[in-house]
């Protein structure tokens, strides 16, 4: 194999050391990926192979039966639709509302700005589940339990602080000189926001909404508490399914794969944003 000089950080590194490191690295990767691999492996096995005391590392006769049976479950498709609807409503609302607040924090110096930042950062740390009891009682009183709207509202609050904070970062990244140039050319402040900042925040809006999608899609405790089995999302269906028929491992793993696909795809798309966004700030501090 060719030498990668740029890979070598320290001088005087032994060949044996690299071999050891590579072996450890490969071993680590294999252990990490194994559970994921096992889910896939199980999902494509017929029931006779799933329920076998000598598990095989490849499906001997691969089948799509498990996927068919998961998709055929009475509540699977409704749960998927509910999940999509709730997620779309919460993410869209969080984006619109959050963008406005992010503009204020990023572009204005005003009395109370620090307080707003403190609120936005602080509420992210309140364990949301702790608020589930009063939220449940409030929504119950407002007749919003067992409704998609009620869940969307709670998800909106779940996503909003993060949305504001992230969009603020993206807007801060746009040079103020652009605003000023546009204003000299006769743009009003709203026009600057609409014509300069909004288009330039595009990638940020996409990244933020994708992250919001993942958060809302993965949530199952709140919806499980607020809604009846008919109005669950896919993740809650996965939990519900488990208690209903605990040992149907094949269909359960197939359902888990279908549920994970949108999240995994989206995550891999914005992965760079999540990782660099976090470290860029922390390294500077």
């Amino acid at each position, binding site marked *: *194999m060719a030498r990668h000089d740029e*890979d070598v*950080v*320290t001088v005087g590194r032994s060949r044996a*050391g*690299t071999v050891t490191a*590579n072996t450890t*690295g490969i071993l*680590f*990767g294999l252990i*990490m*990926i194994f*559970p*994921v691999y*096992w*889910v896939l492996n*199980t999902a494509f096995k017929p029931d006779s192979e*799933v329920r076998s*005391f000598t*598990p095989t590392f490849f499906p001997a006769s691969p089948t799509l039966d498990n996927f068919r049976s998961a998709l055929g479950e009475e509540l699977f498709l409704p749960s998927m639709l509910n999940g999509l609807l709730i997620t779309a409503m919460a993410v869209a609302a969080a984006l619109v509302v*959050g963008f*406005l*607040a992010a*503009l*204020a*924090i990023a572009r*204005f110096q*005003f*009395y*109370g700005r620090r307080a707003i930042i403190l*609120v936005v*950062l602080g*509420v992210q*740390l*309140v*364990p949301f*589940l*702790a*608020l589930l*009891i*009063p939220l449940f*009682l409030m929504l119950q*009183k407002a007749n919003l339990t067992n409704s998609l709207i009620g869940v969307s509202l709670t998800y909106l*609050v779940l996503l909003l602080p993060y949305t504001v904070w992230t969009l603020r970062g993206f807007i*801060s990244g746009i040079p103020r000189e652009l605003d000023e140039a546009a204003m000299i050319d006769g743009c009003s402040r709203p026009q600057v926001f609409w014509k300069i900042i909004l288009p330039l925040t595009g990638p940020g809006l996409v990244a933020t909404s994708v992250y919001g999608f993942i958060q809302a899609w993965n949530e199952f405790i709140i919806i499980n508490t607020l809604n009846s089995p008919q109005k669950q999302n896919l993740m809650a269906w*996965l939990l519900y399914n488990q*208690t209903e028929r*605990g040992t149907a*491992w094949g269909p*359960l793993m197939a359902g*888990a794969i279908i*549920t*994970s696909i949108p*999240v995994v795809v989206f*995550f891999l798309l914005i*992965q760079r944003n999540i990782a660099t966004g976090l470290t860029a*700030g*922390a*390294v*500077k501090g």
Partner: protein
Amino acid sequence: MTAVDTVVPRRRNRDARAAWLLSLPTLVILLALLGYPLYRMILLSFQNMRLRELITDLAPPWAGVDQYVKALTDGVFWGVVGRTAAFTVVSVTVSVLLGLGVALLMRRVTRGVRLFMMIAMMFVWALPQLVAAQAFRWLTDSDFGVLNYLIDKIPGVDFANHSWFVNPWEGWAVITTLVVWAGIPFLAISLSAGLTQVPKELIEAATVDGANAWQVLRGITLPILKPLLTIVTTLSVIWNFGLFTQNWALRDSHPEPVYQTLATYSYTQAFGQSRYSYGSAISVITVLLMLGVMVFYIRQMFKIGEVD
């Protein structure tokens, strides 16, 4: 001169008004759906709200500090607190150390291996928590789980039909493994990004001067990594202290007493036993226990926020 004097404050005033107007929808939503519930939670914890009040819509009777006294004098509650704290300490320590180790390892392996490690971690990171928990439930299944099968292969060890959750130490080992496994990608990838900030020249100079790998790590790498290390550790503490999904799913939505953490205990008290006030009191105590860590985190974030 006078024109400028009057224009600037007026402009600033208008700016402030616009900024508050823009922030208003966010503030209203946060106030109504976060601030008010927070207030209600505290209020509830001083009342005695049970199923009867929920159904009849009667005002729950005032209970003073009864709920808190009940919790703080209950051995079961203290058991939950101790368990949650112990789990947090162990799981955070293990995951941060492993994350750091993996990040350092990623600097030493060749490019292809590094890519493989990245891809493996990305898939684990992307996996929804509940799906990961279900995967582990299946891996550790007593009848057909592959874990028992593999361990059983070791000569002289009989693990056929072994139940992992009969002995709480083993059960918690499974839960901790799941949490650590799922947490490593975030930690390792963030820390390895942070490691790129360590100047090569510094390490080279130290090595030339005769420093060994351990001295380089302690003297150069760790001090530069410290702010990032602090943030990721704080976040891990906050996340792991609030453990819910993993023990909930691995115990079939009905965790036995030894598998309860503060989050599941408060939830079970409220929604399982209809003790809404007692559940709220436990939540309040949980938040109070975490307050120090949270304030610390916010101060760190504020420092970073100030930079840009």
